[in-house]
């Protein structure tokens, strides 16, 4: 099932910017390192991040795209159950 979500914040710049939209697939076949995912984090709620590592139990180690992002150590391993979807398409806002 596909969903559209709006990006808020700058920690995924320049890849994603405030105001961009992304289409996520809730029934993703397989997450790989480098994929962008939307998760429901226990502390930070709904986030969009890049997958940096994948644990053997399926949990994800996530990272932002720049130094403004919350650190991976602060996010911790994110369980597979908290993945809301994999980003399959980005609709970028017009540059100002």
């Amino acid at each position: 099932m596909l969903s559209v979500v709006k990006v808020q914040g700058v920690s995924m710049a320049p890849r994603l910017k405030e105001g961009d939209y992304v289409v996520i697939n809730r029934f993703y076949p397989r997450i790989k390192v480098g994929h962008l995912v939307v998760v429901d984090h226990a502390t930070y709620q709904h986030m969009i991040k890049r997958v940096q590592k994948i644990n053997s139990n399926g949990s994800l180690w996530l990272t932002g795209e720049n130094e403004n992002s919350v650190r991976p150590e602060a996010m911790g391993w994110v369980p597979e159950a908290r993945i809301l979807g994999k980003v399959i398409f980005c609709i970028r806002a017009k540059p100002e």
Partner: protein
Amino acid sequence: MIHGLFKSIDKALHFKTVKAHCDIPCKIYDPSTAQLAALSCVRLMDLIKEIEDKGELGVVDYAQVARLVSEKESASTEVKEAVRIIWGDYFKAPQFDQLPHAHELTHNIMLQASKCKQSITREEGEKLVELVNEFAAAFWLTKGVEVYTAACPYPPALDVVYPDLKA
């Protein structure tokens, strides 16, 4: 054009927002959140014990125990998250140099908070409060703030490490 279309649809359907989460960073860190959550664990364990000691329990008691256990679960999780945020966002190389035992202490708090989820034994809660107090003392050391210990003025009336901001 496509973005404009999505923007129009967004106005009508209100797409969910996801945070490309940004640590401002605001630099507001305080271990008191973790300390209050740890004290809550002990208090909730005490309240569960009060119901257990009643002997014959009715449905009302079972309902209350369910609520207390749920809150204890939340409080234990809150201890973990509050400590992890300080360890993950605030502690950096200079702090780790000053606190060589920080990783072990943080991990011990995670383990003890898990025990508090699994147990209703007050001793486990007291151990959690001790560890979180140790973490708080370490945190204030990195800030150059003196600390003192005093019994908190509400149940469970356990000793808590407080920053001495008047010093």
